């Protein structure tokens, strides 16, 4: 009898001590998950007070006490992510799970007094910098076109709106019916447009002429060009090591001083600037903008912009020219372009972008508020000033002049881009870009709009014509909510 019980004891030890790890990692073992799901989980709230994610009591027959729902549907899917029973968690639901369930050190310390009270709900909440109203405007403006819109506050780096199409509905992923949820996710994963990934910060696209802001900034800072630089009119430029010429957009004749070639977005002068900088200085200048580094956004899986492989660039100098005006292997993350515009507006300081404004405990006390921080100083204040003027030129009389002028005459600065994806002779395919900020003096908001060149309509247009009106509408909407302190300040007036 004793032997039998010793056997039981041994077996008990085997399961409860030796094999706990293996048992815990068995896919059918949902106990740890249930434990998480049985604890209340706080909401994620937008800057304008709309709840983007919250937990509700699950129906009585459910395995768990709570269900996670997303009242805003697909609007903030790429920010909140989802929190599911069978399919894991993503984005803020994953990275901020501790705050939401009240598991952080601060929250636990603060909850000690409640240890014997009836209420064991210690869940925290997240307040976003994103605004529900602006997100809705962005969603409306982009419509069924693939692309993204990012609107951010210049001084802080706070992201006000960040919409990517296609998106997905996290409610369907978090649905209690696991099989339906699994089918939905499988479908999303099979979708070539990658709805699970945010175009705005998890993908990168050829930037076209918007990249000239980076090249110009680098060249100005390194003293390769100045406002006085001048380029003769030309239709094409043949870079070293090749006979293939680089053409201006639509084969036009282009030239003039820096303001002029920037305003008209000529390609050939920038192709020359690339050669003037040379591979090393070009890389150095561009890397100062944070290219080749993951965007320091407070969301997981942010992508890094790139200017391609530079190992054999010495034997491939034509590529250097093309990359200097945003073609070839250049690829920018859309939010990075918004940051570029903001840097120009912010006297050369590139702020870290963020979407979480504050983490709050159950009583609404702030645990952690995001402090704006400078990520990079890519260009000098002086260079930033020059670039600002150049971008004002683009908005007033350049490639964006058609479409960017804001309501109420708020001065605006912009740069357009039309990234040509097709080789010569193939059907036209291009991404349409615009970056802009306003007001010009005391700038508040920067915006980057990118439309993916997936159909003939987008590909036939230019960044200014297609993306420009969207950027304008975003800024107009934003200034309705937050009017600039000095509406259309008359220029040259001194107190």
């Amino acid at each position, binding site marked *: 009898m004793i032997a039998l019980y010793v056997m*039981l004891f041994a*077996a*008990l030890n085997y399961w*409860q*001590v030796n*094999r706990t790890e293996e048992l*815990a990692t068995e896919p059918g073992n949902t106990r740890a998950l249930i*434990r998480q799901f049985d604890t209340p989980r706080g909401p994620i709230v937008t800057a304008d007070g709309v709840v983007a994610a919250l937990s509700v009591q699950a129906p009585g027959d459910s395995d768990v006490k709570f269900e996670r729902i997303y009242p805003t549907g697909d609007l903030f899917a790429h920010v909140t992510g989802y929190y599911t029973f069978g399919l894991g968690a993503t984005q803020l639901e994953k990275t901020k799970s501790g705050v939401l369930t009240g598991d952080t050190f601060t929250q636990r310390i603060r909850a000690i007094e409640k240890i014997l009270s*009836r209420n064991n709900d210690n869940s925290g909440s997240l307040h976003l910098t994103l605004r529900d109203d602006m997100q809705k405007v962005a969603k409306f403006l982009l419509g069924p076109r693939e692309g993204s819109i990012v609107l951010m506050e210049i001084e802080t780096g706070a992201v006000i709106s960040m919409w990517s199409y296609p998106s997905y509905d996290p409610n369907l992923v978090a649905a209690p019916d696991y099989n339906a949820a699994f089918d939905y996710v499988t479908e999303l994963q099979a979708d070539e447009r990658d709805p699970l990934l945010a175009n705005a910060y998890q993908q990168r696209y050829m930037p076209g002429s918007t990249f000239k802001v980076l090249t110009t900034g680098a060249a100005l800072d390194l003293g390769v060009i100045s406002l006085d630089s001048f380029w003769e009119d030309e239709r094409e430029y043949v870079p070293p090591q090749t006979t293939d010429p680089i053409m201006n957009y639509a084969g036009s004749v282009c030239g003039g001083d820096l303001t002029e070639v920037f305003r008209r977005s000529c390609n050939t002068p920038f192709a020359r600037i690339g050669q003037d900088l040379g591979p090393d200085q070009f890389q150095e200048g561009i890397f100062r903008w944070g290219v080749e580094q993951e965007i320091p956004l407070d969301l997981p899986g942010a992508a890094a912009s790139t200017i391609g492989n530079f190992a054999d660039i010495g034997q491939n100098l034509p590529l250097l020219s093309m990359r200097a005006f945003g073609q070839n292997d250049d690829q920018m993350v859309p939010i990075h372009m918004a940051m570029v515009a903001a840097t120009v507006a912010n006297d050369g300081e590139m702020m870290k972008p963020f979407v979480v404004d504050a983490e709050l405990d159950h009583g609404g006390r702030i645990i952690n508020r995001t402090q704006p921080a400078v990520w990079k100083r890519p260009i000098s204040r002086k260079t930033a000033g020059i670039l600002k003027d150049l971008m004002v030129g683009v908005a007033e009389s350049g490639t964006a002049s058609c479409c960017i002028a804001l309501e109420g005459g708020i001065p605006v600065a912009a740069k357009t881009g039309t990234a040509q994806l097709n080789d010569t002779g193939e059907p036209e395919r291009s991404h349409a870009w615009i970056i802009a900020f306003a007001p010009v003096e005391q700038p508040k908001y920067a915006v980057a709009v990118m439309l993916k060149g997936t159909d003939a309509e987008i590909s036939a247009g230019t960044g200014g014509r297609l993306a420009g009106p969207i950027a304008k509408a975003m800024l107009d909407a934003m200034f309705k909510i937050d009017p600039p302190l000095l509406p259309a300040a008359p220029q040259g007036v001194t107190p």
Partner: protein
Amino acid sequence: MAVEAMPVSPRIVARRRTTELALIVMVAAIVGVAYTLASLGANAEIPARIGPFLGLLLLLIGGAHVTVRKLAGGADSTLLPLAVLLHGLGYVMITRLDDDLAGLQSLWSLVAIAAFAATLLFVQRANDLARYKWILFFVGAGLLLLPMVPGLGVNVNGARIWVSVGPLNFQPGEFAKLALAIFFAAYLAERRELIAASTWKVGPFRLPELQYIAPVLVGWVFAVMVMVGERDLGSSLLFFTLFVVMMWVATERVSYLVIGFVLFGLAAFASARLFDHVQTRVDIWLNPWADEYGKGFQIVQALYGLGDGGIVGTGLGRGSPDKVPEAQNDFIFAAIGEEMGLIGATAVLMAYLLLIGAGLRVALRTDRTFEKLLAVGLTTIVGIQAFIIIGGVIKVVPLTGITLPFVSYGGSSLLSSYILLAILLRLSDAGARRLGELPDDPTPRERWAAWQLRRRSHEVVA
């Protein structure tokens, strides 16, 4: 006259009951704390019914203690506290799993303690039981076969061990095992010499005359019938072990143990081959993960629970033992292991071991063969039944659906367990009285008989 000559040491007896009282108070404290913790863990609040609960708890165990003090003053002091501890922990787990069942379980607890007291009251001389052995045999056999009667038996979860008479549902097997244990103890006590005297040999084994060994064969046939007819592997294994162990103790011949288990092994092997549900049980035992969401679900979930509990457990009320179907019945040990961890589960194992130890001590302290055999038999029932189900839950032996004595939810199980405990205490008390540890006062019935006798003799004289 003889009574006066006996060495009386009432202090030993008084100490024994004081020890029992102290142990019982400790058990009450443990159970009360566990009950509160379970509620705190699950709902973060002091249970609303803590007052009534503690009242009922103290009433029940106090009543049981007073009954023992009055009716079996010389009995072992650890048996009752151990049983109450197991019962209390079981109750806490049941409350934590299902509030409705807990209400029923407290009703059953009342009934069980009442039956415990009644048994001690009515069975004041252990030998009384021996006198009714044939009645008990037929009652036991009848009860065992009752579920197979069409119209009465009910299939629950594949096993046909329930009987439904009107509004009353019960598992007759729980009581049959008691009746049969008493019958076997009495039968073997009478015929041990005849059975032990082997007269013919088969190979290396010396066997007794067929007519004396017949009850063993009957036992074997019964076990097989139960196994086949009621699909109840656990009970048949329990019965058979009971018979074989008692034969072995009665005859002091190991060959009975060997023969018995060989026979059972053959029957089990054959039934595994012949009957699908037995084969399925074995397959699940060997690899429950092969059908993780089907037939193996219960045991796989139980193992997850145990693993999740680890050494110290998740804490009462903080695990998810409700993931295991029937957690309040057969799988209550998994719930204990999950929420109280290796430590709590080991404590339960230790409680059973101590219970077994105390039961065997009862057998050792008595010099009457019937009492010795009965004590061994009853101890075997508790020990083996707990082993079979705990072993099934933690994948040591194939899973068979029987209850964990004192711990599992269920009226039949609790009732029969407490009756068993009462008989053990009676045996222990009888042993103590015979050893002269306290006066062997005549029972009321004996006084009544003596009075009648005296009156009759007076009448004769008159």
